[in-house]
């Protein structure tokens, strides 16, 4: 496609940096701050754009792993089981697009949050612990994804984002992660 997304991003960044930012009134601190943030945001988008498909696959895989951690076989978890089943089908289909993977992931998260809200008190601690352990890969991925913003210095110690995405078996083999 002409012009391509990379070209559009690079020219926008250049225009903001070399023409717009120098022309802003130095007394307008708000405009200067927002111009710098706009530039930094576009830079991040440009770096992340090629990874979007991979990200969608990995996030869905992570959500399935979390859902597995809440699978106790109890009939009360039926809604979650239904969402898991649908999400597995999406994850296992190489033709699934980003929107489909995202919708499946969001549906899983909804059912998981609902289950935790409604689970009886005597089961909460055990399910909570299980879910907390299972969500670490997703949180690590999110931390690494935004590490360049500089808010979380420890996140730069995590593996490179490309490695975190490519480590997902679903990405490597095109097969679902969950059992």
């Amino acid at each position, binding site marked *: 496609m002409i012009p391509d997304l990379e070209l559009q991003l690079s020219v926008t960044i250049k225009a903001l940096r070399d023409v717009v930012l120098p022309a802003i009134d130095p*007394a*307008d*601190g*708000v405009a200067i*701050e*927002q111009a710098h*943030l*706009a530039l*930094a*945001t576009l830079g991040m988008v440009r770096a992340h754009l090629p990874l979007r498909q991979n990200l969608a696959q990995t996030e869905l895989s992570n959500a399935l792993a*979390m859902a597995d951690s809440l699978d106790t076989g109890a009939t009360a978890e039926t809604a979650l089981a239904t969402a898991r089943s649908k999400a597995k089908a999406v994850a296992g289909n190489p033709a699934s697009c980003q*929107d489909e993977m*995202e*919708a499946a992931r*969001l*549906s899983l*998260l*909804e059912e*998981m*949050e*609902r289950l*935790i*809200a*409604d689970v009886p*008190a005597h089961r*909460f*601690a055990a399910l*909570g*612990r299980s*879910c*907390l*352990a299972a*969500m*670490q890969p997703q*949180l*690590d991925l*999110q*931390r690494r*994804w*935004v590490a360049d*913003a*500089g*808010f*979380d210095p*420890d*996140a730069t110690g995590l593996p490179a984002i490309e490695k975190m995405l490519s480590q997902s078996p679903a990405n490597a083999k095109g097969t679902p992660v969950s059992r």
Partner: protein
Amino acid sequence: MHKTDHLSANSQLRTLPLDGEDKTAAMVDPRNAPDQHFIDALRRRFPCEAEIDRVLTAKLKQRGRPDYRRESLDEVVAGIERLLRHHLDDEFTITNAGWLGGGASKMQVAFHLDWQDQGATHSRDLVLRMEPPASIVETSRTREFEALKAAAGIVPVPECYWVDTEGAFLPHPGLIYARAPGVTRPSKRPLGQVSGIGTNFGPELRPVLGRQFVRHLTAIHTVAPERLAQMKAFDGATVGSNASIIRQVNWWRRVWEEDRLEAQPLVEIAARWLRENARALDHVSLVHGDYRAGNFLYDEESEQITAWLDWELAVLGDRHQDLAWLTGAHFGHYAEDGATFLASGLLPVSELLERYEQASGLAVDPARLRYFRVYNDFASTVHMLGTACRVARQGGTHQDVLVAWLAMIGPGIAAGLRATLEEVL
């Protein structure tokens, strides 16, 4: 009732829409254009303080409007004039009006005012602090005004003049107070992050500011009960009861349900644990709610703190909330030795807490500190992974690009919340 309310709020959720004005999208995510049924269900499910309920309900009722365009400076000044004409009988003159940056949640305009009041002539530099239609944190100008009044004379705070709680005169609710002199960070040191996070004051200035930091915190936490009783927009807190902290947990859990773009089991785990482990108060304190470097001004020559700012999250409750907040990892940094973590860039944590205990006469309870570490990370996760993304996506703030940038604080905070919950669950 609880299950039904939850299901009715979520039953139509599918893929989140990209355009808040899209009617089809509003049908999919009720949060885009919440109806009365959705609002009422949340109010029943998450009871909180009356003024907080009012603010959050108003927020939802005006959601779904077209993208916000920041008012021009002239429009804001016209609003200030309307407010002043309501309060002042004599003539006044507004000059040197200009936008102020530095804050993440509120719009601020600095201006000079010359006015007459009951025969006296006044000439002051003032600041209008005003809500945008949507904010990274939705709060009450009435509560902020009352908190500033309660702290006046106790610690340096801007002198408050007028408040417009409903936006009857100003474009949006706001308050006017005196502009305090000073800076939030050393003018000659490298910039930290936005909003003063991680400010490095340098080894010479730290002890000077650190002493004042602890002394002021102590003074705030020990404000007399008679003064606290005058804060009518606050529901009040009681020694021996945990009702106030449960209301606070409900406040942020409600905000999460109102604002989130996607569900996060972590938030529900945190909310349940906080409710089930809520402790009774041992002392009712005025809690600043955002006490840290970046929220005080100081004079670079005298090295004295001139004003404490941003009281919008103030509550009546447990002092450990502030103590856990100001010692948080994202507000401090390591000293030059690379090993000593400085709370708010000023003091090592243990030294700060020890000095606080000595000065206040109030014990610092490690278990309560841990509780409020969970609470603060829970509330911050709601702000950053819920509200920030919601309001930026809907174009409701005066600085969406800043708000979306700040949302990237969220994953680190969420990771900390997860780790702490693993310890306590």
